[in-house]
Each structure stands twice: as C-alpha cells, then as structure tokens.
C-alpha cells in the first residue's frame, strides 16, 4: 500500500453543477420567505407544483432522448428553473398555467436545444415571456399584499385550492395592480400624490415588493460571498438601472419614471440581477463581456418599463440580451496568457 502521489498544480476541484444549483436554491429562501409573508402561500405552491412538473418533464425528455435520467436529474438545474419560474409567476396561478410554463421551459427551451448547458435562452424567462404574451389576464393578476387593504392573506389550503381550480372566482376579490403597473397607468398625478392615493406603495416601492427584492438581494449577496458567480453582471445591471432611473427621474412629475430606489426594489429587479442575469449558460462569458451584458440589461429594463408596453421588463431584457451574448463574447475575448491580442484568432478588440 503506497501513498497517492500527486504532483503540482494542486488545484481545488471546481464546484460541481449540482453544488452550484443547490446553493442557488438555498439563496432563494429569504426572497421566498418575504413573498410568502406579504402575499400568502401562493408563491410556495407555485414553486412546489413547478418543481414537480419540471422534474417530470425533464425525466420524460431525457427518456425520449435516451439519456441517463438519474444523472441529469441530480444536477438540480431543472429544479432551479422551476423555482425561478414559480417565484416569477403570480401567487395563486392556476395549475395548468404553471404546467405549460415548465413544459415550455424544460421541453422546448432546454431539451430541444440539447439540454443543460446548450440552451441559448434562459428557460425560466423564456417560459415566463411565453406565458405573459399567451395569457395576459392570468399573468397580470397579482394578489394584494398584506397591509395594503383589509383582505385576508392566502393561507396554505386556500393557495392549493386556487392553484388547482376550486373557487377561482373569489380570487379576483383580493387582487390588485402591481406598483409598476400603477405607475405605468398614471398620467396625471405627481409621484408624491400617487404614493398617497394608491394603497400599493410602501416605504420605497410597493408594499411587499420592496421586502421581496431585499430578500433576493440578501440571497444574491450570499451567492456572491460563496463565489457562485462574479460581481460583474449583477452589479453592472443594477448600476445602469440606477443611472437610467436617476437620469429620467425629474423629481417626481406625472411623466416621471419613478425614483431610482423604486426601480431597484420593484418587480423582478433583484431576482433578475442575482438569479437570472448570472445564469452561466446564457450570459456572456468573460468578465468584460459580463459587464457589458449586465449594463445593457439594466438599460433595457428601464426602457421597457417606462416606455414599453409591459409594466415589468426583466424577462424581456434578459431574453434580448441572451440573443446578444454570443456577439458580446466575440468582441470581448480575453487575451490568453503568452499571446498578444493580435495573435488570437477572431479576437478583434
């Protein structure tokens, strides 16, 4: 019996996909917690049902493609897609909506392109956009947050009932427009008056929304600390969003796009910045590329939110930049060690 002889370099094993994905799942907890706290158990039911269906679709697709099912299911990537989609969908969504979403994400956006690592678009966001343009009514009915008016919070039993189609009529009674939507519809009130007029708004942004965003920010910080991703893409996205909203925030007139803080803590900003933009498969690869990729997403988010047709824009912005990621990669190839930039093939920068 001898000692195992290993020569240098003594490199650490890289983080496995499964470990990265587990960390990402773990990091959604604070955000999910605040969503549940303010909007009831709808989001949890969404996530649960999305996970079940996503895993089933993944297993089905792998069986069709004659790939090892256990091996690919164990990398948790389908589960991450399911979590992100479940969080992005309105709480209390009907079961078929979620099922169509996960089916589209897993079967069409992921497995048809070759499975994990080959998909050009973020599956969760592509599915979200597909659902949004297909079912605008169901996708824009958000529950009213706790404290905005005297409505009951969605309990676990009610959330399940709504999801699986019993008593859906009564759900209309406890829905209201999201803060981004209210801001979009507004064309006569000053921002300050709007804040007092509508009960959706809280300290900085919408009630509940601000805390959900802070929750995802915390989760993202944790992932950054564990070095699951680098800071480049999320920070540059948040920076460009801040710059855009500062530039076009004229002190709160009726035509204003809302304060920077409002944009940072509204809609899916933080979820997008730390969980979607950082997707290693569909984003740009080099650090410089990531900065450009993130910055352009931030600009697009603001442009679509304020001048576009839809109240929230993270999904659209991410999909548009997914298109552009290979192009960005082409022009931001880093210099390899020992070469000058000109020597490299295709390195044109």
């Amino acid at each position, binding site marked *: 019996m001898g000692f195992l002889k290993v020569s240098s370099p003594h490199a650490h094993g890289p983080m496995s996909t499964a470990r990265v994905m587990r960390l990402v799942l773990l990091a959604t907890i604070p955000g999910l917690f605040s969503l549940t706290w303010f909007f009831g158990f709808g989001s949890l039911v969404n996530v649960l049902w999305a996970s079940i269906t996503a895993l089933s679709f993944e297993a089905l697709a792998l069986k069709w493609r004659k790939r090892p099912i256990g091996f690919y299911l164990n990398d948790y990537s389908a589960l991450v897609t399911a979590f992100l989609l479940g969080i992005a969908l309105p709480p209390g969504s009907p079961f078929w909506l979620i099922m169509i979403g996960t089916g589209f994400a897993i079967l069409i956006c992921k497995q048809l392109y070759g499975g994990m690592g080959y998909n050009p678009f973020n599956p969760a966001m592509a599915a979200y956009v*597909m659902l949004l*343009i*297909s*079912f*605008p009514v169901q996708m824009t009915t958000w529950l009213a947050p706790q404290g905005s008016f005297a409505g009951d919070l969605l309990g676990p039993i009610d959330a399940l009932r709504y999801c699986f189609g019993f008593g859906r009529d009564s759900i209309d009674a406890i829905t209201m427009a999201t803060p981004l939507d209210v801001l979009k519809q507004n064309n006569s009130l000053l921002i300050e008056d709007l804040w007092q007029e509508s009960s959706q708004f809280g300290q900085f942004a919408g009630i509940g929304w601000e805390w959900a965003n802070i929750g995802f920010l915390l989760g993202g910080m944790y992932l950054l600390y564990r070095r699951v991703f680098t800071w480049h893409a999320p920070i540059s996205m948040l920076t460009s969003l801040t710059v855009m909203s500062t530039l076009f925030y004229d002190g709160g007139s009726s035509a204003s796009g809302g304060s920077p803080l409002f944009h940072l803590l509204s809609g899916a900003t933080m979820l997008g910045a730390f969980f979607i933009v950082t997707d290693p498969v569909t984003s740009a690869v080099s650090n410089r590329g990531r900065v450009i990729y993130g910055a352009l997403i931030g600009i697009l988010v603001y442009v679509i939110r304020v001048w576009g047709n839809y109240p929230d824009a993270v999904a659209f912005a991410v999909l548009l930049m997914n298109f552009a990621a290979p192009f960005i990669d082409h022009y931001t190839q880093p210099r390899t060690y020992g070469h000058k930039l000109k020597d490299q093939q295709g390195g044109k920068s």
Partner: protein
Amino acid sequence: MSDISYREISLNGLWKNNPAIVQLLGLCPLLAVTGSVINALGMGLATMLVLTVSNTAVSMIRSFASDAIRLPAFVMIIAAAVTCIELLMQAFAYELFQILGIFLPLITTNCVILGRADAFACKNKVLPAMYDGFIMGVGFAFILMLLGAVREVIGTGAIFANMDLLFGEGAKSWKIVLVDDYTAVLVAILPPGAFIFTGMIIALKNIIDTGIKNREAAKTEKVAPTSRRVRVTGNIS
C-alpha cells in the same frame, strides 16, 4: 430533365421537395397568415393558382427569353398572374382579401414561384411545367393549412371558423368548437407560434423520413454469403 415522370413530380412537390418544409421557401406568408384555416386556405389557393399560371407561361416563352433577361421576364409574368388573382379575390372574396392584405401582392416576391420558374419551368415542356406548378402549389397549400389548423385549434379552441369568407353563407355552420370555455393560448396565433409549429412540422417530417430509411435499410442489410469482411459496421452494397 425533360423526361421526368409525373409520378416523380408529384412525389417531389408533395413530400420529398415540399416547398414549405424542405425547400423552406415562401416562409413569409407561411408564418404570417396561417393563424386560421381559412386564411391559410385563401393564401394557399392564391399561391397555387399563381404557381400554375406562371409555370405554364414561363415554359411557353422559355425558348424566346434569353438568359440575360429571363429573371425580369419571369417576374413580369408572376406579377401579372398575382394581379389577376388579387382582382379575382377582390371581386369574389373581398373580406378574405382584406384579411390577407399585403401578403397577397407579396406573392410576387414569393421565392417558391420564382424558384420553380427558374429551376423547372424554363427547362421543361408546357404540360409537365404546369403540372409541377400545380403540385408544388398543392404541397405548399397543404402545409399552410396544416399549420393553420394546428394554430387555430391551440390558439382558439375551435377549427374552421369564418369559412363563409370563401364558401358562402352555408359554410358558417362549419365551425367546430372543440373545447367550450377555452382559455386562448395567444402565443399559437402570434408569430412565435408560427415559428414553433413550423419547426415541429419539419421535425415530424424528418422523423417519418428517418423511419422509412431505417426500414428500407433493415430490408437490404443482408451480408452476402461470399463476403470476406470480418467486421461489418455499415451497409454493404
């Protein structure tokens, strides 16, 4: 080329060289107006007529048009045919004409038609050319209608709506509602749906083709008794 059989022309137009799902020509109307069966049928019929007429005319003038001016000549013929169809539709199916809108005059630029004129009609006699145009048109219209049917069913939960635009008042009752109280899946009617379902139809055709090929390969895959090869990895012919 001139001794090509009608059987072969038919097989080419309908399946092996189908303009819509193999040559992938004329995708613009294919994607744009196949939101329902009636739109697809109107577009398919118009394209089919134009193809037949233009192929016949091109084949007639094939010995007079020199190489240098053949393309302008073809385009003139096609444009004339399209104008006729357009006027016909204005006269007899005005509402459908309005629904199809810009895509009717755009048949002029449909690559299927110029493609067939240049690849087949100007090298063949009148009758085969006419038949080729007709069959290519049928193949195109068939895919258009298939796509229209799939998108209409998924997008609206019903099929054969508004058939009276083309078939008169009696066709109003043709509409079949498959699912009552259906939540419309708008994506199927919107442009992304056209791309997704076109892709699926192409994939389906490839699956069928592979199946046929495998079955034929299985038939012929008998190693000759005198064969001396030790390791047999593929077909021996």
